[in-house]
Every structure is written in structure tokens, then in C-alpha cells.
């Protein structure tokens, strides 16, 4: 029997890409990356508890160019997940659903995270390196 063209539900590719779905996906991606960051945090604490030698090893793991790049990525992931998480909590409280509010809070979360990441690393560069 020949296959009949059944009606299908609209799938991902027919929707226009926009800020709402982009940030939803980014929230999940940053969450997954932060799960890996938690393992790094655990390693850092175990290294600190181990004494000066293991702490120096951790410093070498995080302090090289690649390690710093990953740390900067985790900083953005943390700040975006934090800001977008607060956005979600407002929605859970029933607020901020209007079109303009959704777009403004979305852009605020992603731009705010980028600006704060830059600020944090300028601070680290000026005061802690």
C-alpha cells in the first residue's frame, strides 16, 4: 500500500529563529557546561585541601591560556544561567510575559552576562594576577 501523506505537526525547521528559543537553548547548554564546571570546582577544592603542591598543579591546569579560555567561558555560562534563571523565576511568579518584556529581559540577560564577564576578568587581570 502506498504511503499516504498524513498531516504532520509543525517541526523545528518551520519556525523563525528568535530570541526566545535561542536563549532557551542557550540556558540548557550553559547548564550542561556548568555541570562540568562543578567537577572543576570539586577538583580545585580537593587540590587546595591536598596542600601547596597539588594547589600549584591546579594553578597550572587553570592558569595556562587554554585553561583561562575555559574559565572565561564558564564565567559567561554562570552569569547567563544566573540572569536567565532569575528571568525564569519571574515567569514562574506569573510576571514578565508580555512580548516587549520577554524580549527586553532576554537581551538584558545575554548582554548583561557578556558585560559582567568582561568586567569580572578585567577585575581579575587588574587585582588578582
Amino acid at each position, binding site marked *: 500500500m502506498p504511503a499516504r501523506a498524513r498531516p504532520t505537526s509543525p517541526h523545528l525547521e518551520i519556525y523563525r529563529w528568535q530570541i526566545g528559543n535561542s536563549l532557551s537553548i542557550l540556558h540548557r547548554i550553559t*547548564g*550542561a557546561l556548568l*555541570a562540568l564546571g562543578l567537577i572543576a570546582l570539586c577538583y580545585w577544592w*580537593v587540590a*587546595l*585541601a591536598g596542600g601547596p603542591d597539588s*594547589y600549584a598543579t591546579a594553578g597550572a591546569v587553570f592558569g595556562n591560556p587554554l585553561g583561562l579560555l575555559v574559565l572565561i567561558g564558564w564565567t559567561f555560562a554562570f552569569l547567563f544561567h544566573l540572569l536567565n534563571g532569575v528571568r525564569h523565576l519571574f515567569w514562574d511568579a506569573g510576571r514578565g510575559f508580555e512580548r516587549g518584556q520577554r524580549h527586553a529581559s532576554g537581551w538584558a540577560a545575554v548582554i548583561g552576562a557578556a558585560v559582567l564577564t568582561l568586567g*569580572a576578568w578585567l577585575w581579575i587581570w587588574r587585582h*588578582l594576577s
Partner: protein
Amino acid sequence: MSLRSPLGKVLGMGSAKDGTGHWWAQRVTAVALVPLTLWFVLSLLTLPGLDYDTVRAWASLTRTGFLCSLLVAVLAYHSYLGTSVIVEDYVPSAGPKIIWLLLLRFAYVLSGGACIFAILRVAFGYGAA
């Protein structure tokens, strides 16, 4: 006539076999993580340096040991809730899904437990000074 069993009717949870516990736990831990993570990041950034002696002195403070233990416990729980949803969404068949969820649980308890043990070890003054 209802086709639902008396037990199913009483529990009222439908085919998901789960209530809103996961959703609530995710939100409550999210709210708790706002002050905990901000405190952790800001207290590290305002240290005079990130060398071993400075960080170890900060880590030996009572409030550091207490708040960092709470932070890691809540963070691991929140992260487990989030990553388990990712597994549930993208691993379609039941067998691998259960194995993945169990592996996640073991990984979080192992890394979180090791981290809290390290935090307490420093807080109680064990290991190299």
C-alpha cells in the same frame, strides 16, 4: 466508569508517575543558589590574591567552610536535577536512560562528597598548613 485503578486515582499523578516535586526542587535550589554563588564568587574576587596562603587562610574561616559546604550540596542537587532532564529528553530507550541516570547520580554524589570532604578538611585544619 473509570479505567484507573483505585491506587492510581488516589495518587493522582497520571502516567508520569511523578508529581511536581522535581519542578519545585529545581526552583527552590535555584533561589538558594543566587545568594550562595554570588557570595562565593565575590569573596574569591575580593581576596588580595589567589596564592596558596591567601586562599587557604580564607578557606579556613568558619563561614567559608559552612557556606561552601552548603553551596556544593545545593549546586550538586540543582545540577543533577537539570542534567537528568537532559538525559530524559535525549535518551529515548528505557534501558540506557536508567543507566545514564544512575551514572549521573553516582557522579554527583562522588564529586560532591569529595568536594565537601575537602572543604571540611581545610575548615577543621587538617593537612598541610
